[in-house]
């Protein structure tokens, strides 16, 4: 066999649906999902904090489930539905999780907020509750807030959960 015959390419075509919009483009295979979102698609709500899969600022939803977009190749998202913070609100109407964050002042500098909100969206979708404070803190262990504003974030999530349990 010749070396040229080996499988794989250095450029890959990545076809996704991002926030409801179909996209298809060729990128280097080593492109991380977060860089596809930020640099190719201009969706800069998704931030890069630690870049080592610890802080969760880069959290997005991949087929509805939270993942760290700094630790996935764009190629791994090929064919998937991707949702970022830009895709949560319905026009001028905030997503319920965004609304709860605003109501409870669950953000300070805002850097971790997009990832935090998406982690909460995934949590509430996966876990029917009722949630305890411990459940919420455990579920957000992969999202760091360097302003240390965790209390209000947890309050916002607990309020959302209480509302849906009542509702």
């Amino acid at each position: 066999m010749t070396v040229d015959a080996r499988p794989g390419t250095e450029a890959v075509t990545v076809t996704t649906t991002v926030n409801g919009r179909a996209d298809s483009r060729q990128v280097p295979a080593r492109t991380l999902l977060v860089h596809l979102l930020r640099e190719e698609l201009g969706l800069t709500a998704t931030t890069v904090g630690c870049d080592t899969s610890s802080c969760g600022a880069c959290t997005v939803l991949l087929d509805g489930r939270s993942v760290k977009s700094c630790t996935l190749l764009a190629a791994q998202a090929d064919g998937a539905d991707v949702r970022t913070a830009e895709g949560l609100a319905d026009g001028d109407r905030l997503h319920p999780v965004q609304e709860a964050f605003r109501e409870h002042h669950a953000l300070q500098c805002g850097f971790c907020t997009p990832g935090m909100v998406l982690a909460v969206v995934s949590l509430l979708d996966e876990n029917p509750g009722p949630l305890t404070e411990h459940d919420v803190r455990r579920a957000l262990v992969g999202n760091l807030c360097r302003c240390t504003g965790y209390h209000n974030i947890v309050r916002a999530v607990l309020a959302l959960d209480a509302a849906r349990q009542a509702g």
Partner: protein
Amino acid sequence: MIPASVRYHRAADLAEALELRRAYGDLLRPLAGGQSLLPALKLRRDRVDTLLDLGRIGELSYVAHRGDHLAVGALTRYQRLLTDPLVDRYAPMLATAAAAVGDPQVRHAGTVGGALAQADPAADLPLALVALDAVVVLASTAGTREVPAAELAVGPGATLCRPDELVTEVRVPLPGPARWSYRTFARPALEWSLVAVAVADGRVALAGMGPTIRRARGVEAALADGAGAAAAAARADEDCDPVDDVRASAAYRRHLSRVLVARALADCSPEVRP
């Protein structure tokens, strides 16, 4: 940080992946969830010619009850183990171990087979599989073979998996243990375990106490001889070779192993007997 330039190929199915492994061997690096491999590539601690993405091989994502064992496909993601009713009923230790892995985001991507192939000496799920006496299925175009989970890893990051093989399944023998415990000690929430212990009836396995996950034979022998939990746990670090590094000294790891084994045996008390 981005990985160095790399080639990429996504396998359409298991047959294609095995054929490529046969033809190209270690030129191709299997990519499952990538939760260990991608950080290593980004930090340039690992170099790869071509990634063989297995992530879309849906036929390897399953949990199945097959009478005398519970089968888990290699591409089953950690998160599924937390909620799967068959895991809950037949091998709940797997759910406990999976819950100790990273965070929800990592568990949504990381896979059972990836954890085994990565052979990290402090990994949670492989530890549980060793304690449960599970068997790992390795497949190639020539067929399949079974390797005990306890023998798969031969060193940090090294396994018995040949360049033409892939991990395809783990089999947890049933019935499972009457009594079991899983205990881990980590520093901050996201750090790997410094030491972790899994007890399943008379089997005791340790992570973080040497180059591979290992059975604590001294503890098991003491239990078999009728020793109490305290006396048995005192032998936890026999024949162990824990690393001495910035996270913890070897002496501290030895101390942790004895404490965690004592607590795990107490969790199982009084029925822990081989």
